[in-house]
């Protein structure tokens, strides 16, 4: 008796949950579907849900006509480049804070977090002018620098929370045995910290890939990443739903897949370790 009630309850909740989840996911699904339509089918009223002429011509067209490849490559270089440079700067810092904490460590961490609270627009003017005068405007190098800077606090924080969980005793023991800093890094940091570093890497690539303030303001046709490419569809003459959808699908697919893999780390990374 009790079992059948819980079973019915489970089925009811399953149905509700799936309906809600599909509704939330629907805009993405709709974008993907539209990307396989002809432009005519894409704007048809009433809309065609599944029964339309499936085509991949939008992908072919977006791929060949615009500089899609360049934008995609810019996204890759900017997000991965800034993440790797960020990690190189942040790993020693987080390592030191996690294993040789001083009284001021917490203050330093809080201060780093506070730099995240500075609104980007507050420093838009000087950054724009500096970039303009040094020729960094619309270059990948310039954006890599900015992305590194804006995400550095998150990288340090995230690594710190991971490193904190590596038992200190092991380090002490290694030091007793006379391990030098180099050996300490090589034999202890590497194996025990790799999962944390990997998660940080993943989350940071996602954040950098989707960043849309600096990428839109500091780039034009040379270094613009996908965020800027998609934004160019906002012009009225760019209103081709099927092509917009194909471009969008290609822009979000890699990051969506990475995101699904990193969903657990996401919580931890974005809450600076406050919620695990």
């Amino acid at each position, binding site marked *: 008796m009790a079992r059948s009630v819980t079973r019915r309850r489970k089925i009811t909740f399953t149905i509700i949950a799936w309906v809600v989840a599909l509704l939330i996911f629907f805009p993405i699904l709709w*974008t993907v579907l539209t990307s396989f339509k002809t432009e005519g089918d894409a704007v048809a009223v009433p809309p065609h849900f599944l029964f339309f002429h499936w085509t991949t011509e939008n992908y072919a067209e977006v791929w060949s006509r615009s500089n899609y490849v360049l934008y995609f490559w810019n996204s890759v270089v900017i997000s991965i480049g800034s993440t790797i440079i960020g990690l190189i700067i942040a790993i020693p810092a987080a390592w030191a804070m996690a294993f040789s904490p*001083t009284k001021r460590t917490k203050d330093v961490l809080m201060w780093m977090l506070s730099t995240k609270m500075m*609104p980007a*627009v507050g420093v838009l*003017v000087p950054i724009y002018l500096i970039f303009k005068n040094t020729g960094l405007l619309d270059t990948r190098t310039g954006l890599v620098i900015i992305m590194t*800077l804006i995400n*550095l606090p998150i990288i340090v924080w995230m690594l710190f929370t991971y490193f904190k969980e590596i038992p200190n005793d092991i380090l002490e023991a290694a030091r007793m045995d006379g391990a030098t800093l180099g050996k300490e890094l090589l034999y202890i940091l590497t194996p025990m910290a790799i999962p944390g570093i990997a998660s940080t890497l993943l989350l940071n690539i996602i954040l950098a890939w989707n960043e849309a303030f600096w990428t839109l303001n500091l780039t034009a046709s040379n270094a613009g990443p996908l965020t800027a490419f998609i934004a160019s*569809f906002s012009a009225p003459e760019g209103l081709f739903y099927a092509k*917009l959808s194909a471009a969008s699908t290609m822009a979000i697919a890699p990051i969506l897949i990475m995101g699904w893999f990193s969903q657990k780390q996401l919580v931890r990374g974005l809450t600076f370790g406050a919620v695990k």
Partner: protein
Amino acid sequence: MATLHTRASARLMMSPAVIVLFIWMIVPLALTIYYSFLDYNLLTPGAHNFIGFTNYRFFLTDPAFLTSIWNTLLLVVGVLLITIVGGIALALLIDQPIYGQGIVRILVIAPFFVMPTVSALVWKNMFMNPVNGLFAWIAHLFGLQPIDWLAQVPLLSIILIVAWGWLPFATLIILTALQSLDEEQKEAAEMDGAGIVSQFIYITLPHLARAITVVILIETIFLLSIFAEILVTTNGGPGTDTTNLTYLVYSQALLQFDVGGASAGGIVAIILANIVALFLLRIVGKNLEA
């Protein structure tokens, strides 16, 4: 047991990050303050005279300024309300024993990974367009007159677009907190005859307080700087109906090339963000220490 040696090397290891962030914080800020006192427009070459607080006076008395503050506030509060209430409901739902929980979770968090320009344009064109958007079609199904979302209720439209992207974030964090809730506590309460509602109010909600605080704090930081969604949908319009502080400063800087005025606006934005941050951290601090 940190020796002098390790302390010195620790300082060395931290210095690149600290120095880089320090420069990043100080140099642009100092320049913004400096520019904010100059008569400096990129379109008018020549000397940039010191003009005191004139830029601030113009910025603060611009009617668009108050509108932008109000819009910023509505945007932040609106999105927070939707994502937190929705997030709690969704998290409670997903936390139930259901079939295919993993897939449901994956579907629900997906919008978070969609870049702002994509979500804004997809919503604008394929859903909110009054002629061939899906919402218009749904309105017709019910015999209603479709509304032109971004023209008639522009700010609400942007709130909805942004909230769609942040709902997964709130859900995921609240869900994570929910899963650490002690089942026995709930069972005990149930034994004592507590109904579902009072269980939620007296056990679940207090347990979620920390997670909700974190959501408010982090979302606020990001929501104060909403930019791309406005840029690609309404350009701050109609009029200044969807101009938030970020967009207002952007338009002064990169559309009107008014370096001085935009810098003054930037400083105002920084001050306001800091007030919000202080205020938030004070409230949030108590919750986070625990």
